[in-house]
């Protein structure tokens, strides 16, 4: 029986401000417990919140980057719940008037099953709102007590809520990755998932095609794309099995356990979601002027989607290649720097980055920002491929040396004698030698044994110590043999 999967995401991005959303305490990661918990963060009576301009600016930036409506006037609300890491007893958030309204994000989906082709999809973003983070509970220090560190309390978050537009784990992961890349691209979030700067809640339900939406369960706090994929796959199967065995899905919040690969319902109290939102009387409405929005617009770099279009339309790359080259701002900058060395051949730069560079980064477990070869070094080498100085196999050797020892392509080519022979006369004489030394094979070839061509190429390459320009060699060999 066919089932349809419906997925929506809520993503909490920690904004890269210096200070908290409502006070001048530092947000630097890794400080000693409670040394960055000021009077506002610990909710001493009588303190008042004062909104951080940097947090609002980042929210505007996000809204502009997703083509969303920026509210000229938005309102902060109190979301009430009791937990020791929330000392006020409420979280300041936004409810019915968020700062960023409806927007959209275009994603490139790479299906993980079968031979399905990559495709493009647009996911609608419902809203994005500003709110404060809670503190951290530290369990297991002493018996019977929980430790509370309020350094994180009050850290600015932008919660980005999508419409339930995704219909597979692959789409959900593609959306999360695209969003992750975008917030780093526009510089509003460092994207560090280990430190909790980018946390995803995934709402999953299943239904039969054409039927109304099923009851959803929310998988909380996923901080890796791999876990997200596993958690959704497990959850979907669990819901389908439950319904097919005659059960019903209860709305619930679940946690993913990476060790067992399972999702499990959290114990939830009946009043857990009775948040009693109301406008925070401590905070006046937030007004954002058109001038401010225009100023922020000036600071937005060319966005990934615009780059993809430009790479496809102006550089002639495929959409798929373009999307890989724009997966992170570092990769795009790398590619564009390489392009300045070989401006007439974008494809060669793209191929080397998507192929050798990415493969080698994966093998060494490195990010693009840690790439041992600079874009200038790679560009220097590609220049020598496109002007015919080195062959592709020679380039691979130069690349390996650049990667492990560094240096400069021209120096490596000279030191290793990798310059290929493109001198027609030299190749012709070499071919002539081979033909006269292998009269028997030449006769066989001429009587129709075409397969022998490879044998001659091999001999000629060997004779040139691998330095003959392969295209020229092929041409000359063919001419002499056939002639």
């Amino acid at each position, binding site marked *: 029986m066919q089932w349809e999967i419906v997925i929506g995401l809520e993503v909490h991005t920690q904004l890269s401000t210096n200070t908290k959303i409502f006070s*001048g305490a530092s947000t630097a990661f890794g400080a000693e417990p409670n040394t960055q918990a000021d009077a506002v963060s610990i909710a001493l009576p009588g303190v008042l919140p004062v909104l951080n301009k*940097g947090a609002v600016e980042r929210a505007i930036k996000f809204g502009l980057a997703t083509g969303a409506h920026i509210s000229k006037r938005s309102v902060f609300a109190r979301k009430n719940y009791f937990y020791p890491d929330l000392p006020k007893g409420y979280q300041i958030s936004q409810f019915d008037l968020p700062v960023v309204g409806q927007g959209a994000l275009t994603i490139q989906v790479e299906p993980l099953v079968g031979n399905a082709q990559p495709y493009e999809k647009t996911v609608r973003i419902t809203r994005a709102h500003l709110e404060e983070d809670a503190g951290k509970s530290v369990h297991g*220090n002493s018996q019977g007590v929980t430790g509370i560190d309020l350094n994180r309390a009050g850290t600015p978050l932008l919660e980005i809520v999508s419409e339930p537009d995704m219909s597979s784990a692959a789409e959900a992961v593609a959306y999360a990755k695209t969003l992750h890349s975008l917030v780093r691209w526009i510089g509003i979030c460092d994207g560090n998932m280990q430190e909790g700067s980018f946390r995803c809640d995934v709402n999953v339900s299943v239904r039969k095609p054409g039927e109304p939406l099923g009851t959803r369960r929310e998988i909380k706090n996923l901080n890796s794309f791999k876990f997200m994929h596993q958690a959704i796959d497990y959850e979907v199967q669990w819901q389908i099995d439950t319904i097919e065995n005659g059960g019903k899905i209860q709305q619930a919040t679940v946690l993913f356990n990476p060790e067992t690969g399972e999702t499990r319902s959290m114990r939830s109290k009946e009043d857990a979601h009775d948040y009693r939102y109301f406008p925070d009387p401590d905070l006046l409405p937030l007004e954002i002027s058109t001038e401010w929005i225009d100023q922020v617009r000036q600071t937005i770099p060319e966005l990934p989607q615009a780059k993809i279009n430009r790479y496809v339309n102006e550089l002639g790359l495929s959409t798929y290649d373009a999307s890989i080259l724009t997966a992170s701002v570092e990769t795009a900058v790398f590619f564009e720097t390489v392009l300045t060395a070989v401006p007439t051949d974008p494809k060669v730069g793209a191929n080397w980055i998507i192929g050798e560079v990415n493969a080698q980064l994966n093998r060494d477990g490195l990010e693009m920002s840690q790439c041992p070869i600079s874009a200038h070094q790679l560009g220097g080498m590609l220049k020598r491929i496109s002007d015919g100085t080195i062959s592709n196999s020679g380039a691979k050797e130069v690349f390996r040396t650049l990667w492990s020892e560094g240096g400069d392509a021209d120096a490596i080519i000279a030191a290793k004698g990798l310059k290929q022979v493109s001198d027609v006369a030299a190749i012709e004489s070499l071919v002539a030698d081979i033909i006269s030394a292998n009269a028997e094979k030449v006769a066989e070839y001429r009587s129709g044994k075409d397969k022998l061509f490879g044998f001659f190429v091999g001999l000629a390459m060997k004779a040139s110590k691998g330095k003959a320009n392969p295209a020229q060699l092929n041409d000359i060999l063919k001419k002499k043999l056939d002639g």
Partner: protein
Amino acid sequence: MSLNITDVEKVARLARLAMTPQEMQAAQVQLSNIFGLIAEMQAVDTSGIAPMSHSQELSQRLREDVVTETNQREAFQSIAPQVEDGLYLVPQVIE
């Protein structure tokens, strides 16, 4: 609209207030009176008036994103009931 005693119990639980049955009954009357006031306000014709989220017609002043607070952990923790290794201690919370 008036509240029944179950509503009062729920509100008290949400607010983490321990109340005696007598207090609940008193609160039921008081809260119902407040609802009466709200009902009176809701009866006013407000068509054509934009909703307000704050009693003052002002907007938020913003703070520059600059660190102004220093570490005052020692002072703050001197009035906390229990601390350990810089952490505030609370009765154990199980997730």
